[in-house]
């Protein structure tokens, strides 16, 4: 069951470290919350209620606005089976959709392969930031990773035009002939060729962009601004990926988590405003996830690794509201006796995005049928 997904774009934002779901979407009227959280707790005047039971973290006021405008969907209790609370295993699982074995193919890289089976456009998948996440990596599938939009390309520091042309030609010769020298050398060779074609396309992006939206001066805002710049240049990108780090709040969560919430919510709402200004908001959905939620009980200054957490969808095409079921905060129901139990499998949400948004068959990517939600306006 797929719908026509032509030109629809997905922007994935990874919150690295394990965001504290319970202090993002807060069960502010539930006494179990206050029993479990003695110190790392938000009082009723620090939250923005969305109903009688749940509230948005008060530092994320832009989220409240988006929620009220019907542009924010909250997926409650998302998680994966048999959590072992490791960041790395957790992130691997989210990146490859393989909870029971160590997978090597990223779920979004596989989606890029489906969207652009002949690898015609190296910008079908674009990562903004340092380092390509495994979610985007599949051997043989070109995706572009841009750490520095302005300096992207090779041999572009040589000033003499004739020499520059010769140098690029030589580079192409060397990188095009890495076949037969082993898989890693071949991979590097292909990456070099992809850089050349991506650089051609991206050369003018920065100059073409104009906007009245003023993004804040922080990493996630800068990255989402770059997403906007590339997207608005109309280069055929279907999947963007970027990361926001710092969520591993074992300690000093009280001073640090509010800034994360402020930066993230501000960046996302600025990004959506930017799209709106350019009349480009109909076909973009933002998906925000993290590897796990945190422990029910705080440890005095922070929270340790937990299980079930939350994910979020943003954008004009999104039917805002609550999806899934908030995990029980009653101690009797806690996973391992100390964590939120997840209530919906992340592979169902991947399936939702792949099939209902990108029109890609999800089954071979998530390896099965998982319960989906219906978060898109029809």
């Amino acid at each position, binding site marked *: 069951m797929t719908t026509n997904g032509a030109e629809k774009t997905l922007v994935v934002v990874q919150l690295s470290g394990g965001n504290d779901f319970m202090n993002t979407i807060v069960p502010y009227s539930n006494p179990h919350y206050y029993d479990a959280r003695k110190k790392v707790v938000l009082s009723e005047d620090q939250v923005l209620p969305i109903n009688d039971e749940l509230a948005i973290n008060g530092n994320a006021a832009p989220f409240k606005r988006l929620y009220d405008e019907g542009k924010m969907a909250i997926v409650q209790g998302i998680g994966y089976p048999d959590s072992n609370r490791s960041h790395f295993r957790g992130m691997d699982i989210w990146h490859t959709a393989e909870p029971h074995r160590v997978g090597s193919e990223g779920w979004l890289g596989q989606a890029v392969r489906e969207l652009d089976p002949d690898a015609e456009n190296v910008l079908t998948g674009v990562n903004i930031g340092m380092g390509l996440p495994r979610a985007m990596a599949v051997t043989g599938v070109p995706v572009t990773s841009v750490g520095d939009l302005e300096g*992207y390309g*090779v*041999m572009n520091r040589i000033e003499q035009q004739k020499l520059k042309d*010769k140098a690029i030609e030589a580079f192409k010769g060397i990188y095009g002939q890495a076949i037969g020298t082993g898989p890693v050398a071949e991979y*590097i060779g292909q990456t070099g060729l992809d850089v050349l074609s991506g650089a051609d396309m991206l050369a003018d992006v920065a100059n073409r962009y104009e906007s009245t939206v003023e993004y804040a001066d922080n*990493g996630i805002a800068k990255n989402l601004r770059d997403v906007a710049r590339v997207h608005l240049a109309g280069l055929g990108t279907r999947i963007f990926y970027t990361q926001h780090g*710092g969520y*591993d709040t074992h300690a000093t969560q009280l001073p640090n988590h509010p800034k994360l919430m402020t930066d993230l919510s501000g960046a996302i709402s600025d990004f959506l405003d930017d799209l709106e200004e350019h009349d480009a908001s109909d076909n973009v959905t933002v998906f925000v996830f993290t590897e796990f939620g945190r422990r029910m009980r705080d440890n005095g*200054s922070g929270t340790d690794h937990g299980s079930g957490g939350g994910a979020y969808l943003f954008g004009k095409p999104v039917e805002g509201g609550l999806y899934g079921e908030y995990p029980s905060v009653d101690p009797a129901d806690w996973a391992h006796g100390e964590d939120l139990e997840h209530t919906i499998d992340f592979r169902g949400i991947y399936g939702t995005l792949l099939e209902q948004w990108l029109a890609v068959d999800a089954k071979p990517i998530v390896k099965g049928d998982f319960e989906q939600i219906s978060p898109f306006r029809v």
Partner: protein
Amino acid sequence: MKSDRALVAHLMRRAGFGVTPAELDTLTRDKSYEEIVDDLVNPERFEELDESYIERYYSGELVAIHVGKWMYRMVNTQRPLEEKMALFLHHIFPVAWGKSEHGPSLYSEIEMFRRVGLTDMQTILLELSQDPAMIFWLDNNENHKGEINENYGRELLELFTMGVGNYTEDDIKAASRAFTGWTFRQPLSLYPVGHHPAEFEFLEDDHDYEAKTFLGETGNFNGEDIIDIIVKQPATARFISRHLYNFFVEDELQVPSWATEPPRNEMAIQQLSKVFMENGGQMRPVLRELFNSDFFKEATDFKKVKSPIELIAGVLKQTGEFSSPVPGIQQFAVTTLNGSPFEGPLAIMGQRLMNPPTVEGWHTGHEWIDSGTLSERVGFVEKQFQDISKPGVKDMVERAGSLDDDPAKLVERCLDLLGGIKVSEQTRDALVAYARELGSMDSGDEEGSVGVHNLLQMTASTVDYQFE
């Protein structure tokens, strides 16, 4: 010649940060391969760099300055393995500035790594567990009697010593209890004196003195006992051997998959583990075994992708720009995480030293390479070899000869000068064709615009050069 140029160049790249043509001349003339290995594992035979001299040029609180100072050491040290082991320990016990924002503690930790890198695993783990930067990074200062924070206990077992599958959740809790009360203090207050290194402190009142059962042994263990038990485990010998193999010999898969995926070279891991066990976790015998082994000597063909710092330090060693302390080396290490408005080359290539992305450290091997990082690698090399007034570039250009020479011989000399690097036949042919093109271009119309340095540039931009 007492030793083989290409093999010694390979050794010096892996056990250090490369070698200049002049250094390679001296080494191969005076010493056998085994003698060079023996020198590497006994760094005290060589003089230490004068730290005070460095401090005059690179001082201040910014983490980029500390990284710059470290890079200066990598490029100029007479004790390359000491410096490489500090980097190894930073890779496998990664601590990031971003949490503490405390530069001096991070730099003190690297100094500690330099001091203990060639001792033994007990010493290394004990110093690590008492290191303020690590204590704060993994929250052991929040690990209290009766209210444990298991972050350090978990990562010590999962990522630092044994790997998943060799312990239980109960072992994590027992280890965490044994490290309660291991914290640090600030000898000087932040205001007005600024950041100064912190000191380890043991708080007796906060330590859990009750009996604990850890890996099958029961006793009133403290952190030191836990470390002793860990170092005795064959699983630890294997895990550290695999880390060493991955760092010095050949790229392995990322650490989290080690529990399920076999090593690239089982025999090599067994060989190293055996030496580790027989010598009670001493590093020198293990490293000597590694560098003298056939598997190391044979690991020259596209086996290990250079990390960004290996690429950058290696190039800077070759260009000679920082062969004495002059301002500026920290420009390569600046990052927006630390107040710079733009990212420097290390950051764009994906390795902010002293700022690893997570406690797992950097994903290495082919994961260093994507279109963004490759674009920066090539751009960096272009820029560094562009200026022929740099002493190393000047020396290499003179040694290489003229563009009027036979292009094949010219390419051969460039490959040797850049560290005896091996390239595929296809790459060699393409370089020869490029040398011919350069020779046919009129360099007269724009002064100094075409020259042998362009060939060095291209040689260091190849697929092949991305490998150590």
